[in-house]
């Protein structure tokens, strides 16, 4: 019924609220940090259609393989489709190699799709995980399809509020708990200022033992100056 109404009116028509025609976007704040034993990935949980919050408990930390996850930002439909395709490829790859695939292989397939279909897609992805050849790795694949490995990576509309914070406070070789706290702080700061980010903070730690997830509810997020 919503489809029919959306087609009957022009999008942007005054008779139709904008959320009936706007695309689902994960407004978002995402980040990932490498540490000695693996990676920590983090995201907020808000999906918006226009200014309406369509989902306030979204899971933006999506499984590619058991040891490789990705953080999704941009169009929800695009990033879900891309992640499905990469996951499909990695399944075959694992059977061919008879061992867990490397993070950089998944990242390369992400890049392949995001670059070759760059005109049609709106997707900013952080691919992160652990493999036994190179340990914890974080790869950034922003809009346009660049691929770059970084010790810390931020993405999404909320990340603009974090560049200064990361530059000023990040240090390499943190412990697992320090990384988790660091990510929680950063996501909290972005949620506070960015209208397109909010809800709860989802964290995950990927090491040789697999994934360990944590959720921080809104009231338990770190609090900063509220002037």
């Amino acid at each position, binding site marked *: 019924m919503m489809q029919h109404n959306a087609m009957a009116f022009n999008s942007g028509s005054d008779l139709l*609220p*904008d959320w009936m025609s706007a695309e689902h976007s994960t*407004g978002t704040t995402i980040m990932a940090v490498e540490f000695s034993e693996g990676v920590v990935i983090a995201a*907020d949980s*808000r999906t*918006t259609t226009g*200014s*309406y*919050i369509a989902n*306030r408990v979204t899971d933006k930390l999506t499984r590619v393989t058991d040891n490789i996850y990705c953080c999704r930002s941009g169009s929800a439909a695009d990033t879900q489709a891309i992640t499905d395709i990469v996951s499909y490829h990695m399944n075959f790859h694992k059977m061919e190699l008879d061992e867990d695939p490397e993070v950089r292989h998944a990242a390369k397939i992400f890049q392949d799709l995001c670059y070759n279909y760059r005109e049609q897609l709106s997707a900013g992805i952080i691919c992160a995980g652990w493999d036994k050849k190179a340990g914890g790795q974080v790869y950034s694949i922003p809009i346009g399809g660049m691929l770059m490995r970084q010790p810390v990576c931020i993405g999404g*509309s909320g990340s603009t509020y974090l560049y200064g914070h990361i530059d000023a406070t990040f240090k390499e070789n943190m412990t697992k708990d320090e990384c988790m706290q660091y990510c929680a702080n950063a996501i909290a700061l972005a*949620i*506070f*200022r*960015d*209208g*397109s*980010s*909010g*809800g709860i903070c989802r964290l995950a730690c990927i090491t040789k033992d697999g994934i360990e997830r944590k959720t921080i509810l*809104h009231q338990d997020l770190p609090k900063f100056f*509220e*002037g």
Partner: protein
Amino acid sequence: MSIMEYNGAAIVAMIGKDCVAIAADKRLGVQSQTVSFNFKKIFQMNDKLFVGLPGLATDVQTVANKLKFNLNMYQLRENRQMKPRTFMHMVSNTLYTRRFGPYFVEPIVAGLDPLTNEPYIATMDLIGCPMETKDFVVGGTCTEQLYGMCESLWNPDMEPDDLFETISQSLLNAVDRDALSGWGAVVHIIEKDKVTTRDLKARMD
């Protein structure tokens, strides 16, 4: 993004038993960036009359000042408090004088008659078309969410404490589904002998 959604707002007013309540969020944003958590959108005009102004922030402040000025002049000349319904007509006229270059606000009027203490609420569009109701009025960027909340929670003849709970829950849950409003909330309960103002603890996201 439309000009009415540039700064973000959520305002609601409700009628209770011999009282009215008006509530608003406190966010000031520039599209998705939040700039302030302390932005005033409800203005007291006289002892028992309030006006809430959702819309473009610069016009919120300009229109509030204009209205206060005109109300003061009226009250000085007439030597009596202005009735809410008269004030509504004054706001409507102020907006219509700018019919072809409007102020981007959609005001909500809430108050008690200065003599009879009868509760009154009204809203209007940005060029002054008024709408008076007997239950509740809503305005801002999450009106659909507010209508849903108010329609479910409102009952006639609520006592001030009940009305406070109802209007607070209506506002808080509506703004939690809107990316452009929230970040704090303020509620004014207007009764015949006092006005109670409370700040709500809200989600800051």
